[in-house]
C-alpha cells in the first residue's frame, strides 16, 4: 500500500462505512475491510481494475466521480475518499458537495499546484511546468482542474466545510514537515491530504 494510502487509512475509524472513489486495484478498501473491519466499497472507472477488485471479493462498481455519486443516498457512508483525482474531475466543487452529502467525512488528496518547482518553472521557463508529479503535457493531461492548497482551503471556506485534519506530503507519501504553516506547505508539499466534514 502506498504511504499516502496508509495516511488515509489512519484517518478512518475501524468498523465504519467507507466509499472509495477511484478505488484502483482495491488496495485501500481491501485493507480497510480485512484489517479494520470496515464496510468498504469502491467506484472505479478502469474496467480491468474493477474486475480485478471484484475477483478479489471486493464490492466495486464501474463508474466515476462526476456521474455516479448522485445515485448514492444521503449519509450512507461515514467516509467518502477521493485519492489524487480531484484535479481530474469535470466539476470538483460538485464532487466535493456530493462527497459530503453522501458521507459524514470526506477524505481528499490532490497534487499541489502551488509547489515551488511548478512556480519556478512557470516563472523562469514561461511554459506549463512539467515535474515528476505533473508529468503529462498540457495537451494530453487529464488534470483539467489543478489547484493549490490555498485554493482548496478557500473553496472549503466558501462552501462551509470544516477542515478536521490536513497534511502535506511528498510524492512518495512521506509526511512533509510543514504542518504549522499553510504558506510553507503550499510551497513545499507535493501532495495535499484533507479530512473534511460538514458544518
Amino acid at each position, binding site marked *: 500500500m502506498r504511504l499516502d494510502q496508509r495516511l488515509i487509512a489512519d484517518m478512518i475509524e475501524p468498523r465504519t462505512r467507507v466509499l472509495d472513489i477511484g478505488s484502483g486495484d482495491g488496495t485501500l478498501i481491501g485493507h480497510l475491510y480485512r484489517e479494520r473491519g470496515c464496510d468498504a466499497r469502491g467506484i472505479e472507472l478502469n474496467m480491468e481494475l474493477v474486475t480485478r477488485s471484484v475477483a*478479489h471479493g471486493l464490492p*466495486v462498481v*464501474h463508474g466515476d466521480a462526476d456521474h455516479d455519486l448522485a445515485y*448514492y443516498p444521503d449519509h450512507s457512508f461515514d467516509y467518502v475518499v477521493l485519492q489524487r483525482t480531484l484535479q481530474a474531475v469535470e466539476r470538483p466543487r460538485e464532487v466535493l458537495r456530493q462527497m459530503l452529502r453522501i458521507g459524514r467525512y470526506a477524505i481528499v488528496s490532490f497534487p499541489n499546484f502551488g509547489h515551488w518547482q511548478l512556480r519556478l518553472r512557470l516563472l523562469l521557463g514561461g511554459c506549463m511546468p512539467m515535474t515528476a508529479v505533473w508529468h503529462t503535457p498540457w495537451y494530453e493531461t487529464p488534470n483539467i482542474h489543478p489547484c493549490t492548497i490555498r485554493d482548496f482551503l478557500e473553496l472549503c471556506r466558501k462552501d462551509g466545510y470544516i477542515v478536521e485534519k490536513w497534511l502535506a506530503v511528498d510524492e512518495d507519501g512521506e509526511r512533509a514537515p510543514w504542518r504549522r504553516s499553510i504558506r510553507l506547505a503550499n510551497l513545499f508539499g507535493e501532495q495535499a491530504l484533507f479530512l473534511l466534514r460538514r458544518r
Partner: protein
Amino acid sequence: MNSTTPLTVGDHPHASFPEGVELDCGVTLAPVDIAYCTYGQLSPQKDNAILICHAFTGDQYVAEKHPLTGKPGWWERMVGPGKPIDTNRFFVICSNVLGGCMGSTGPRSPRTDGQGAPGELWGTAFPPITIRDMVRAQHKLVHSLGIERLFAVVGGSMGGMQVLEWAVTYPQMMLAVMPIATAPFHSAQNIAFNEVGRQAIIADPDWRGGRYWEADVVPARGLAVARMMAHITYLSEEALTRKFGRRMRRGPASGQGPEGPVSTFGDIFEVESYLRYQGSSFVRRFDANSYLSITRAMDWFDIAADHDGELTPAFAGTAVRFCVVSFSSDWLFPTSAARTLARALNRAAANVSFVEIETDKGHDAFLLDEPDFDRTVRGFLCGVAEHAGLS
C-alpha cells in the same frame, strides 16, 4: 426418425407439490412438479447451497450430459469440481422453470383444472405465468430440500430476471445474488423480438390453435424460425462476422459457373446454414406452447412496476450482496440496463459490485469462454463466503 420428431425421455428427477403454486394471475396451479438437478454436497449446516436459474431455453441440466440431446451441460464450464462455481465447496441446485418442458409443470403437462377431455394437455389453456411465479415454485423446491437460506442465487438472461425476483421477493433467503446479462425490466425491443417469434409459431399451420399434440405434429417450421431470429439477438455483428463472414456453402442445387449462382437459393451463406441448424435442433427439444408461455412471462417482467414504477424501493433495506455483470457487445440486455440496475441498488444503499466484461460475443458471452467473467464469479462468491465467515 423424422428430424423434427421431438426427443422424449422417461422421467426427469423432480419434486411434486400437491398443494401447487398460487400464481400472479390469481389461479392456483395444482399439483406442480418441478424437475431439478443437484451437484455437490449440502453441508451439515445447510449453508452452502447455490441456486442457478436457467435462461429462456435452458433447463436443469447445468453441469451434466443432457439426457435428450447428449450435449454437455449448458454451464459445465462454470459449474463443477474446481470450477468458478465449485461443487467441491457448494451444493448447486438448478430446476426447470415453471412453464418449461423438461419435466416441470408446463403447457405440455396434463390439464388439472377439471376442464377439457380426460388426459388432455394444458396447451394454450395453461394459466399465464410470470417470472415471480417461477421463483415461487423454486422457493418451494428449496424449502423442500430443507434449506432455509441459500448462499447465493445466480443466473443469466431470463435466469438473471429470476435472480432479481428472488432478491426482491425473498430478500432474507440468500446472502448474495449475481444477476448476469439481464435487466430490471424487459425492454420494448425485447418484447418486439419475442412477438415475432410467437407470431412465427402461431402462423405455422401445424400449430393448430395450440393443440398440435392431437395430430401428433409440432409447429416445427414456426418454432425453428422463432429460434433462428432469437439466436441472432444472442450474438453480435462482430461475432457473426468473425464466425461466418460472407462465406458460402455449396447447396445441393448448386451448379455455379463463372457468371455466378444459377439459382437464387442454390448456394447458401454459412450463417444461414448455421441458423437453420440451430432452428432444427431446437424444435426437437423445446415445446412450442412453452415458448409462448415463457416469452410472455419475460415480457411482463418489470421489477419497478410492482413498486409504483420505482426500482430503488424494491431493494430498500436489502442486506443481500449484489454482483451485476454485463457484456460490452450484448445488445439484447445492454450494459446501460445493468447500469440502471446498479445505480438503483446504490440508491438503496445496497452492497453492489458492477462489472462490464469486454467481449465481442454478444449476449451469449455468459455461456462462453470469458476468463474475466470466470474470475469475477469465483472472486465474488469467495468474497461473500469470506464476509459470511464460511470456510
